[in-house]
């Protein structure tokens, strides 16, 4: 029986039609290709009118197959499958040819574009003839959710879900949740204190009956698929029994070992070997840092254990491994700060009074190492002049080409805090001021009025080598003022480097662990940059906050909430369709050679000893097709990617090859299975 195929060529406005002669393509397909009974072109196939066109033809013309030549199937395959299904056709009898991403956007040669588009349509037509009607598998969605990362994005997402009545497992690598926001002093542009707005949310998380908070823990492995993931979490040993600890903090007072706190205090302050990163930490239980604890080093001390009123210290505690069953995952793993040492001419790490932005946050913070006093490294002297250098490691091709989005506003905030607390002169060296969002421009105006000096130009050097009177003992900031067109040397007491945001150093590993992709730099990739910013290409895995790209707190919170809303949608529906793209073994052809058995990394293939054949467990099969390609007997078939379908696609793609035997339409060569 021959099929009745409809071919639909999309103009995509001028995106496709500007390069590919869509009318000719559609005419050619209708006249030349076998079994094509309808061939149309339309301005926007994905619009409701375009979809209706297809639906009407299916009903009126009795189409049995549909080919849409438009954009990438990753963008609109679902759309067209849905319209086929609503017209009563099996959605898997539809095939797309990506003539936008692969043709019109990548070439300007109109003749070549047309012939390549013809090839792609011919390939799709040949392939779709051999498509089989498939039924998507419905799988239930586990209502529990895993949120990875306890910064403000993860906190927001966890609270939204928990408040909606769903169980959340929140995994945080550090001993406390809070993330970078907990380190900040004030937040721009309203100057609310970060702790005042964050800590209530943190304690909500800690006390919420629906949130299982796993701090000092990391996700090691994720298996399963949308709706049914299993995440293996390593809960690192705290050496403090959470059940017995009251969080009184006596152990911290009594611990004799002090170490520099490189994480929370950004190297400016000290913590004990048994510690809580900050007093409002959630959970309140301290952690013994094995690396610096005297007992773990020398086998003696145990001061904390002696003084603990509830005997909560346990030096024998081991890491525990938990397997969490969840339906969806939200990744909110945040960012790392650019290491300012990589720009040696700014002197960070060499010149004492050069600070990073995060160090300055701690310096300003009332609960920080100086109790909020802005002083130089000597701990007493107030600076009389401060230089703030923007774009350190951002907008710089040698380091990160991107704009870190928050530094302009942080710099303005710092300028305000310095003026308010010390009355010092503040010089801001910027490339462009980018106060983008609500109330930001107004804040910039306010700083202009407060007398902050703005010098447009990238700083060449920060040095302590004085050349002119007035520079003795100062840090001299050398830059070209591009508005005045002259070199400036500004002597200051303190320099703040607005270090950029960059992806976590282990972002790539994390993306692999969760089966999502990330950009070259390491930012996690969203499903669509505009219209689907919190979903990823992996169903059931969502992203929120700065792990996706630099953004400020309001945007981060919005994404946390958005990801939670997406997850709630999944839970509310209760089940999800899973692609029926799996492999099956035809017993009668299987020789029992067991070549395929070792190929499957998901252990979906087992050998049935009684029948002496191999068998594929469809629930475990992910559909990669490696076993299909390997079976020497051709006994394994891969749904939707069968040998025959791919051979047909090859033959269609090579429609225009002149063959020695003079055959016009290439006939697929039967290769015996």
């Amino acid at each position, binding site marked *: 029986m021959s099929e009745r195929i409809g071919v639909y060529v999309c103009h995509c406005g001028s995106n496709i039609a500007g390069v590919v002669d869509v009318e000719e393509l559609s005419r050619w397909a209708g006249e030349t290709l076998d079994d094509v009974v309808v061939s149309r072109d339309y301005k926007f196939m994905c619009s409701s009118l375009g979809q209706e066109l297809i639906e009407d033809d299916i009903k009126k013309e009795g189409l049995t197959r549909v080919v849409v030549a438009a954009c990438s199937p990753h963008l609109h395959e679902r759309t067209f499958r849905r319209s086929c299904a609503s017209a009563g056709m099996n959605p898997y009898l539809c095939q797309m040819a990506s003539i936008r991403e692969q043709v019109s956007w990548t070439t300007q040669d109109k003749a070549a574009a047309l012939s390549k588009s013809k090839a792609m349509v011919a390939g799709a037509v040949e392939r779709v003839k051999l498509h089989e009607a498939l039924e998507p598998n419905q799988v239930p969605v586990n209502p529990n959710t895993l949120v990875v990362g306890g910064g403000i994005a993860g906190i927001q997402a966890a609270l939204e879900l928990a408040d909606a009545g769903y169980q959340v497992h929140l995994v945080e690598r550090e001993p406390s949740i809070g993330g970078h926001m907990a380190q900040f002093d004030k937040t721009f542009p309203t100057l609310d204190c970060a702790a005042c707005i964050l800590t209530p949310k943190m304690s909500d998380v800690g006390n919420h009956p629906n949130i299982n908070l796993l701090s000092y823990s990391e996700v090691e492995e994720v298996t399963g698929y949308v709706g049914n993931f299993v995440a293996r979490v390593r809960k690192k040993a705290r050496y403090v029994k959470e059940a017995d600890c009251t969080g009184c903090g006596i152990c911290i007072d009594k611990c004799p070992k002090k170490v520099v706190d490189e994480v929370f205090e950004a190297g400016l302050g000290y913590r004990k070997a048994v510690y809580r990163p900050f007093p409002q930490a959630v959970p309140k239980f301290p952690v013994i840092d094995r690396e610096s604890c005297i007992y773990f080093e020398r086998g003696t001390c145990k001061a904390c254990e002696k003084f603990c009123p509830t005997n909560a210290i346990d030096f024998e505690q081991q890491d525990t491994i938990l397997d969490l069953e969840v339906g969806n995952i939200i990744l909110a793993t945040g960012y790392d700060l650019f290491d300012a040492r990589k720009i040696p001419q700014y002197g960070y790490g060499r010149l004492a009074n050069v600070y990073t932005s995060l160090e300055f946050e701690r310096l300003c913070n009332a609960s920080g190492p100086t109790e909020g006093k802005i002083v130089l490294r000597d701990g007493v002297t107030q600076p009389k002049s401060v230089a703030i250098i923007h774009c350190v490691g951002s907008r710089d091709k040698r380091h990160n080409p991107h704009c870190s989005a928050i530094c302009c506003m942080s710099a303005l905030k710092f300028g305000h805090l310095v003026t308010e607390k010390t009355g010092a002169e503040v010089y801001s060296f910027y490339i462009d001021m980018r106060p983008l969002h609500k109330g930001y421009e107004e804040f910039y105006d306010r700083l202009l009025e407060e007398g902050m000096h703005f010098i447009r130009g990238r700083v060449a050097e920060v040095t302590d080598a004085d050349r002119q009177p007035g520079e003795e003992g100062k840090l001299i900031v050398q830059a070209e003022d591009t508005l005045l067109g002259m070199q400036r040397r500004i002597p200051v007491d303190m320099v703040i480097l607005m270090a950029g945001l960059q992806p976590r150093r282990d972002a790539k590993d994390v993306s692999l662990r969760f089966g999502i992709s990330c950009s070259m730099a390491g930012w996690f990739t969203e499903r669509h940059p505009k219209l689907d910013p919190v979903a990823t290409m992996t169903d059931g895995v969502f992203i929120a906050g700065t792990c996706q790209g630099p953004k400020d707190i309001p945007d981060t919170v919005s994404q946390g909430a958005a990801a939670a809303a997406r997850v709630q949608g999944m839970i509310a529906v209760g089940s999800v369709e899973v692609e029926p793209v799996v492999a099956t073994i035809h017993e009668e052809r299987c020789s029992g050679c067991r070549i395929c058995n*070792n190929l499957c990394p998901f252990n979906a293939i087992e050998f049935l000893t009684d029948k002496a054949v191999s068998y594929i467990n469809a629930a475990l099969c992910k559909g990669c097709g490696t076993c299909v390609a390997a079976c020497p007997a051709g006994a394994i078939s891969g749904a939707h990617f069968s040998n025959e379908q791919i051979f047909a696609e090859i033959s269609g793609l090579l429609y225009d090859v002149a063959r020695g035997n003079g055959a016009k339409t290439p006939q697929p060569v039967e290769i015996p299975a």
Partner: protein
Amino acid sequence: MADATFEPKIIAFLCNWCSYRAADLAGTSRIKYPPNLRMIRVMCSGRVDPTFVLKAFALGADAVMIAGCHPGECHYLEQNYKAMRRFAMLRHTLRKLGLEEGRVRLQWASAAEGAQLARAISEMTEEVRALGPLNWPAQWSEEDGSIETAILQLEEEHAQAMEVAA
């Protein structure tokens, strides 16, 4: 051999997760590359049966590219390593058949590497253009009149090779 008007036809098999997305990205970034390469999406580079490549040559392709996730980054954990092993075997077989090395290429391209994929396509197109047309269908017909027989023979050899490899 080099013919100024010769436009090579290249068939490419791209994995759904990395390389096909790299092709999408090259498109959305409007990166230009020669329109000589025609792409087929497969779920994984591990799905590429060497017979797909032979089939493409048999139907008149001048070259074939197989593209997948970088080693260690496979969406299916490790199946691109299997593609890599098969590719080594395939290249060996094709060399025996007298095919120039430049006519088959294994290309790693992550979803972020649109520009790199486009560059690889440009390189390969130029390389194949310099090699000239392959015209396998005609060449085989000259020798023993039947490409089907030749493919059958190859298929058999391939099956034997697979058994040894396992």
